């Protein structure tokens, strides 16, 4: 496949040919990004508590000579690497927040062929690849025509509802040509569409005058279980593809005390926005019905909601990404996302999410990444960046 560049004649084929030497150079220069992965990863950054980690990212942006390094009102750190022409901008971003709170010991271990520790895959290594990008491009002798807008965004996970990336893209007025979201794992991941999704939290509590002698009386755990069973009766359509996940449940404190309150967190995701709306209404109705029948207070709160969005599989950005992955020895796995890519696409820009390397025990304290695949993972990111810069991903 040969796609002639509009600009200076560089073809996709020539970019693909560079990948093996790029991988070699990235292996030789690995300390440029591995050090940042460790230093960033050892700073706890739970969602809504990313300040210190983001501050280090900003320091790195400054040290690496970016223009306009700043932290915005949403807590995001960004900076610009000016291009030769600078008539448009390519956005490359990674989220700063992790699922681990400050109570978790954030110590990473570096071995010859792996790094392990909480949050290294999601998303310290992703952040490091972006923070180190200006140095890497410099070492590799790559100068882009477009401006490169680097973003370490906050408030991506869980209940944050993509507040950081949404806020940034709503307020940052730049002619963005395309966006790349970078995740540490899993290598091969190719997301070009965002799923419609709803994240809900059901709070259930027994009133203070709850009649324990009443027929069907029970503690909060029993009630939550019954409610989950009823919610599971809601039909989940196969088309459009839809999924419901019960992700978190909390109630009780001991072996023999009936708890009086409980909380359930769930997510509905679907390729059909109308399905999400419909299922939201059904869960709401079930909660109301359950409340009336039992005398309990049962309330559903929508903590995050997003619409379906995306670019087609045939979009040149997706096609080019697949070609690059293939040349880098990476097998693509199409994976619709509920992550920050939604913000890029909903803001009207084409974009993809890439995974850099292979990970184990994702989101566990002993999370780890493999180093050898990382070099081809970063090579795919840089090659895609060059392809976008060369106008090879335009629809």
């Amino acid at each position: 496949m040969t796609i002639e560049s509009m600009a200076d004649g560089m073809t996709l084929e020539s970019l693909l040919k560079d990948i093996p030497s790029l991988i070699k150079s990235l292996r030789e220069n690995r300390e440029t990004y591995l050090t940042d992965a460790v230093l960033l990863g050892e700073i706890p950054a739970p969602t809504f508590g990313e300040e210190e980690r983001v501050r280090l990212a900003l320091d790195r942006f400054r040290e690496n000579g970016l223009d306009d390094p700043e932290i915005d009102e949403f807590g995001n750190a960004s900076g610009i690497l000016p291009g030769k022409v600078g008539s448009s901008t390519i956005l490359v971003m990674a989220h700063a927040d992790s699922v681990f709170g400050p109570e978790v010991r954030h110590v990473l271990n570096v071995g010859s062929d792996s790094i392990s520790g909480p949050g290294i895959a999601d998303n310290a290594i992703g952040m490091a690849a972006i923070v180190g990008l200006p140095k890497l491009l410099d070492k590799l002798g790559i100068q882009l025509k477009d401006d490169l807008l680097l973003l370490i965004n906050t408030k991506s996970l869980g209940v944050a509802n993509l507040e950081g990336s949404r806020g940034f893209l709503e307020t940052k007025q730049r002619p963005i040509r395309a966006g790349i979201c970078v995740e540490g794992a899993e290598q091969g991941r190719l997301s070009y569409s965002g799923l419609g999704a709803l994240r809900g939290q059901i709070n259930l509590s027994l009133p203070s005058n709850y009649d324990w002698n009443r027929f069907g009386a029970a503690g909060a755990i029993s009630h939550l279980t019954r409610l989950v069973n009823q919610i599971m009766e809601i039909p989940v359509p196969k088309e459009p593809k839809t999924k419901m996940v019960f992700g978190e449940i909390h109630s009780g404190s001991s072996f023999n005390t009936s708890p009086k309150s409980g909380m359930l967190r769930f997510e509905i995701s679907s390729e059909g926005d109308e399905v999400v709306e419909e299922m939201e209404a059904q869960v709401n109705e079930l909660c109301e019905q359950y409340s009336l029948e039992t005398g309990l207070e049962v309330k559903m709160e929508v903590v995050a909601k997003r619409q379906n969005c995306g670019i087609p599989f045939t979009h040149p950005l997706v096609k080019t990404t697949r070609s690059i992955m293939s040349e880098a020895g990476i097998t693509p796995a199409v994976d619709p996302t509920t992550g920050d890519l939604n913000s890029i696409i909903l803001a009207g820009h084409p974009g993809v999410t890439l995974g850099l390397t292979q990970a184990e025990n994702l989101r566990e304290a002993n999370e780890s990444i493999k180093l050898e695949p990382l070099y081809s993972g970063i090579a795919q990111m840089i090659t895609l960046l060059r392809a976008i810069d060369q106008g090879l991903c335009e629809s």
Partner: protein
Amino acid sequence: MIGNNQKWLENNTFHHGEFWDILKLVEEKEKKGLKISLCIPTLNEEKTIGKEVLILRSELMERYPLIDEFAVIDSGSTDKTLEVASNFGADVYLASDILPEVGDKRGKGENLWKAIHQLKGDIICYVDADISNIHPRFVYGLIAPLIRKNEVQYVKAFYDRPLNYSSGLRSSGGGRVTEILIRPLFSLFYPELTNIVQPLSGEYAARREVLEVIPFPIGYGVETSHLLDLYEKFGLEAFAQTDLDRRVHRNQTTNALGKMSFGILQTFFNRLHAQGKIDQMPNMETFYRRFEVDDGVYNQIIQEVIEEERPPMIDIEGYRNRNQ
């Protein structure tokens, strides 16, 4: 002496945050024509050495050329310490290969001592290999006072900046051996050295000309002997210390600490003997010295501890007469 101590504390105690501008340090170093070597002594440290080499080398050699030479000197590890260290770009040496004509003794002090011969720097910085939360501050925080102040010869690290809690001040703590062995001994025999907050910390930097004129115990006593010998030769003014905040490392068993204390005591009493403090035992000090920190200011707290004794009861007339 309290006034002198306070003055020394004010002038010679630093926080690594004062030296955050590494680029400026590099400029000052180059202006003075100094070469700086970093040495990590190792013995079976494969779990932590990779991270130390990666971070210190890439931050302090690649990003900012503060360090001119980075060596791992090993006592004969049987794990992958050397492979991992070399993988991440450190120069790796076996202590036994350095100055082979003087033989091979096994111990951290041996590696530190042979580093003086192997490395070329005007300043040598030693950092232990078992620091889980390694950060460039562990090196630039120690080197900076030597670059900035010509009169400083030797810089010690200390850790865990004490905090002012609502319930009161938290004592500035060293390790267990520091608090129950070294600080009482220093309070008795070398009161001025009690200004060193953590005399046993394994991280320090010094000028070649002072390292080459002192002996090195090969085992546990090396940190103590450095302090005693340099104090004897150059006085307290030769020292500085830097607060490096938190250090995470493996915990030692009480047995291991006992063994360490025994080694330190040997070194200590050797010095007392050599300096005539045993043969002609001076009056022992009765002031116990420790630290507290109040709003970032280090204060030496001095308490008089007099171990008064009662004579055998039989010597007491009232006792002897009690049944009469």
